[in-house]
């Protein structure tokens, strides 16, 4: 399998605080990768570097073989990188459907009925269809999380970055979320998923990377990684429910 994403020695520091330290890994096409690590380990920063919200101090990012390190966030999005935010960030003055349409038309480059049909399909998949005309700012937390998912799927991504999308959900909500993510993965989308809800993560990913202080400290098969002493140590104090 060719690699869809390649991080090559990424470094980033905010003053004296290092948030990415010589971070390298590859993601194969169609792979689902889980990222775990303590709070403040630099996981979300890594997403910001991949999507182009932040630029790295050193290192390179390749997407589908092309060096995108210097590309703008908008360009990377149109190339097929979409993300969801840990704290949902909808266009709060616009309806759910309009939020979806922005992603479908701008990121995926669709137009007219094609875009509308795609949005309706995704909204159906994420169980938001009946709230399509609700203004996004008035949604509940669960629905905002669904909207994050909806918007990133409407962008028709090749690579989907999920940032703690299961946090704060009830068990049954989590089950349906896992199913949605599995469906998306099965349709061929590569996924990187940052998650503290480890059992949800393990239900989907084929590989796990552990990050701490911006460094990759372990990588491999999920079961082995979770059982390793380093991870046990890091996760002391953090609920391990796997």
């Amino acid at each position, binding site marked *: 399998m060719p690699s869809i994403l390649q991080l090559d020695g990424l470094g980033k520091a905010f003053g004296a605080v290092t948030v990415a330290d010589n971070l390298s890994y590859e993601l194969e096409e169609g792979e689902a990768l889980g990222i775990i690590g303590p709070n403040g380990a630099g996981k979300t920063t890594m997403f910001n570097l991949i999507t182009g*919200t932040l630029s790295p101090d050193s290192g390179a990012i390749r997407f589908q073989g092309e060096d995108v390190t210097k590309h703008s966030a*908008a360009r990377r999005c149109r190339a097929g990188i979409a993300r969801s935010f840990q704290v949902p960030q909808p*266009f709060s003055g*616009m309806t759910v459907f309009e939020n979806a349409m922005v*992603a479908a038309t701008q990121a995926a480059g669709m137009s007219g009925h094609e875009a509308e049909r795609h949005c309706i399909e995704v909204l159906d998949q994420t169980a938001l269809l009946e709230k399509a005309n609700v203004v996004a*700012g008035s949604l509940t937390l669960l629905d905002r999380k669904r909207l994050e998912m909806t918007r990133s799927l409407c962008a028709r991504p090749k690579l989907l970055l999920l940032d703690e999308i299961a946090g704060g959900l009830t068990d049954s909500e989590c089950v349906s979320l896992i199913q949605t993510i599995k469906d998306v993965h099965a349709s061929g989308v590569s996924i990187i998923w940052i998650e503290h809800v480890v059992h949800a993560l393990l239900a989907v990913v084929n590989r796990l990377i552990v990050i701490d202080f911006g460094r990759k400290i372990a990588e491999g098969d999920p079961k082995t990684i979770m059982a390793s002493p380093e991870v046990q140590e890091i996760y002391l104090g953090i609920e391990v429910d796997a």
Partner: protein
Amino acid sequence: MDWVNAIVQGTLLGGLYALFAAGLSLIFGVMRLVNIAHGDLIVLAAYLGLTVVVTTGLHPLLALIIVIPVMAAIGYALQRGILNQTLGDDILPPLLVTFGLSVILQNVFLEGYTADPQKMDAGAIETASISLGGLSLGILPLLTFAIAVGVIAGLQFIFYRTPLGRSFRAVSDNQDIAQLMGLNKRHIFGLAMALALAVTAIAGILLGIRTSFDPTAGGARLIYGFEAVIIGGLGNLWGTLVGGVILGVAQTIGAKIDPGWQLLAGHIAFLFVLAVRPNGLFPRVSG
């Protein structure tokens, strides 16, 4: 009847003020840019119209066919070339830069067209009028008002019914997220300024037909525009039209009481609204 007449004439005048204000409102709404040079850009459109009329012999209203695209192109270039660089967390740089632009424009007008007041001759339409129940309504003011309503309705349609409008609203709502959705905000801002100056082109031509203008005429137009936007409520286009009408009516009623009161009455109406409803009459409810 005199009073009814004053109110009707003021309402029609309000259409012109709403046209002054629409571009200002649009720019502020999309990119939080307060454009101090807006009045001078209106006057620029009037001078461009004058040039077109003089060189081609076209009727001033037909000159719009040329002036609208030229102003839109200027808007896009201005935004991409200069104004985008000033936008950020600090609101001071765009204020300073557009103020500088205002000074530059006024001096360019002075150099290019002298300080003499100019006016575009629109022929018979300027004095034509129709009688309606004892009122004499000028065709030009009626046309101006109709255009203002049409322009506001058109902008409203663009904002809420088209992909371009959705992009404007998305960028206005959250710039960072919009970029992560594939929107190039610099381009979107350029398009917003192009649209705003296309509207400004219409305002400038109608101004130049209605009254004489000179290189310093922009300042007062900027004030009227701001007042109409603020009376109506920021970010509400129909509110802007109402704001323009209130301003126009206040001015004609003021003039009715005493000719010297015309401008003052408009400003007093503005200050009154600002004191009673600081967010304007129809503030947009944020989600």
